[in-house]
C-alpha cells in the first residue's frame, strides 16, 4: 500500500473529506457537445464566499483541492482564489481547457505551486477537436498553452474524453501527449446533463469500440490482466463500499451546493446556508451514501463483476437508484471481460424470447 493509499484509508477511518472537487464557475468559453452543464450564471459564489469555504475545507482536513468548472479562468478572481488556496496549503489541481493560459498565467501557476493541470483535448485533428468544443482555434490555443505550462516545469495531463465524434482519434491524441511530454488519460464516460436530460448519451461510443479500447495495450497496459475474468468476490469485497464519493470525496458547485461527487448529483446541503463540516458530518443524504455496502446492492451483489466493476453510484442514481446498477459500467465490465453482468442477464430474462424453429411439440413413440 502506498503512502497516499495509507493516508486515504486513514481519512476514511476518521471521516475526513481528503479530496474536494470545487467547480468555481459553470461559465465556459467552449460549448462542448457532450457537456452536462448549464453555462449560464445563476448566481455563483463571490470571491469572499469562496475564500470562506476554502477556510472551512482546510479546517475539515481537505488536502487535495481540484478547481474546475466550466472554465476556471472565466473567473477574473481565479488567481486570487488560487493564491488563497495555496496559502492554506492545499495540494491544488486544476482542470481547464487551457485556452486562456498564456506565458504569464503559466508562470503564475508555477509560482503558486500548483500540483497538476489537466487539459481537455478531444482530438489531434483541429477540425474534430474544434467541432466538439465549438470554438474555432481551440486546439491550437490549448496545445500552445500546454507548451507554456510544460516549459515552466508544471505537470500536465491530457484528458481525452471519447465519444462518437472522436472515437478513432485516441492514438493521435496519445501521440500528441508524447510529443508534448505530458501524461495521457482516456475516459469513455459520457454522463447525463445535470438537469437529467439524457440526450447526450447518444454520443457514447458503441460497445464494439469500447471493447477495442479495453483490448488496446497502449491504453490499458497489460490486456490479459485488465480483461481477466473477475475473481470470486470474498467477504472484504462484499463489505466494501463502491467508491470514495461521500466517504473521502465531496463536490461543491459554484452555487454552494454540496454533492458526494461531481458525477453524483444528490443534493446534500449548501455551504451558503450551513457550515461545510455540518453538511459533511450530518447530511442524511451523505450518510445514506456511506451506508451502502456491496452486499446491499440488490442486483450487483449477485454479479460476478461485483469486486472489479467500476460501478458508479452517481450514474446509478441518475438512472433512478443509487443502489442499482449503472448500465454504462455493466457495458464496460462486459466489453472488458466478455462476461455479461447480472443486470444484463436480468434484462435478457425480461425480453420476449425468440420462437424456436421447428415443430412446437416433438412426439416420439416410447420404445418397447
Amino acid at each position, binding site marked *: 500500500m502506498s503512502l*497516499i493509499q495509507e493516508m486515504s484509508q*486513514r481519512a476514511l477511518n476518521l471521516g475526513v473529506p481528503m479530496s474536494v472537487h470545487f467547480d468555481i464557475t459553470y461559465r465556459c468559453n467552449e460549448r462542448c457537445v457532450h457537456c452536462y452543464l448549464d453555462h449560464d450564471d445563476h448566481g455563483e459564489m463571490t470571491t469572499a464566499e469562496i475564500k470562506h469555504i476554502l477556510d472551512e475545507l*482546510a479546517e475539515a*482536513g481537505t488536502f487535495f483541492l481540484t478547481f474546475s468548472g466550466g472554465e476556471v479562468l472565466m473567473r477574473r478572481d481565479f488567481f486570487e482564489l488560487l493564491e488563497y488556496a*495555496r496559502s492554506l496549503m492545499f495540494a491544488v489541481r486544476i482542470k481547464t481547457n487551457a485556452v486562456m493560459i498564456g506565458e504569464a498565467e503559466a508562470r503564475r501557476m508555477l509560482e503558486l505551486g500548483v*500540483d497538476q493541470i489537466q487539459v481537455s483535448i478531444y482530438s489531434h485533428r483541429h477540425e474534430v477537436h474544434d467541432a466538439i468544443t465549438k470554438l474555432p482555434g481551440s486546439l491550437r490555443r490549448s496545445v500552445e498553452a500546454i507548451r507554456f505550462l510544460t516549459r515552466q516545469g508544471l505537470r500536465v495531463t491530457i484528458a481525452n474524453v471519447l465519444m462518437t465524434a472522436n472515437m478513432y482519434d485516441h492514438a493521435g491524441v496519445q501521440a500528441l501527449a508524447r510529443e508534448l511530454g505530458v501524461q495521457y488519460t482516456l475516459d469513455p464516460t459520457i454522463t447525463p446533463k445535470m438537469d437529467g436530460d439524457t440526450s447526450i448519451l447518444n454520443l457514447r461510443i458503441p460497445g464494439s469500440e469500447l471493447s477495442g479500447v479495453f483490448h488496446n495495450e497502449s491504453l490499458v497496459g497489460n490486456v490479459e490482466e485488465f480483461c481477466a475474468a473477475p475473481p470470486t468476490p470474498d467477504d472484504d469485497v462484499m463489505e466494501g463500499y463502491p467508491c470514495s464519493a461521500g466517504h473521502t470525496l465531496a463536490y461543491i458547485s459554484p452555487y454552494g451546493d454540496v454533492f458526494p461527487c461531481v458525477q453524483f448529483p444528490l443534493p446534500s446541503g449548501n455551504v451558503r446556508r450551513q457550515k461545510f463540516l455540518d453538511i459533511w458530518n450530518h447530511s442524511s443524504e451523505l450518510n445514506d451514501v456511506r451506508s451502502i455496502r456491496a452486499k446491499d446492492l440488490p442486483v450487483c451483489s449477485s454479479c460476478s463483476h461485483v469486486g472489479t466493476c467500476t460501478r458508479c453510484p452517481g450514474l446509478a442514481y441518475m438512472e433512478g437508484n443509487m443502489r442499482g446498477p449503472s448500465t454504462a459500467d455493466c457495458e464496460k465490465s462486459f466489453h472488458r471481460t466478455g462476461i455479461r453482468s447480472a443486470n444484463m442477464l436480468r434484462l435478457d430474462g425480461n425480453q420476449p424470447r425468440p420462437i424456436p424453429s421447428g415443430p412446437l411439440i416433438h412426439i416420439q413413440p416410447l420404445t418397447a
Partner: protein
Amino acid sequence: MSVKYIAKSSAIASRLLGGEMMVMSSADSTFFTLNPVATVVWQAADGVTPLSDIVADHVCAEFEVDAETAHRDVERFVEELSQHGILLVSETPIAGSATSPTEAA
C-alpha cells in the same frame, strides 16, 4: 554549534491528519508523512525560532525523550527534509516563510 532556523518551503502542500502531518512537494509530487515528533517540529518551523528552542520547547516538553537524543533525531529529520527542498534551513532568520497549515482531524 551555529544557530539554525527552519522554515517550510512555499512549494509544498500539507495538512494534519489524525495527528500526523501529510506533506507533498509540488515540485515533484513526492509525498511524506511525518510522525508526531516530526509534526511538532514542522508546525513550529516559522523561520524565526531557533531550531534548538523548537527542540527544547516542543519536542522535549511534549515527548519523553532526553535532550541529546531529541537534538540528534531532529537534526537528521531536518537534514532529510531540506534535501527534498520542503524545509528551508538557514543560519539567519528566514523572512516570509509559509504560513502554518490549518489543523484538522
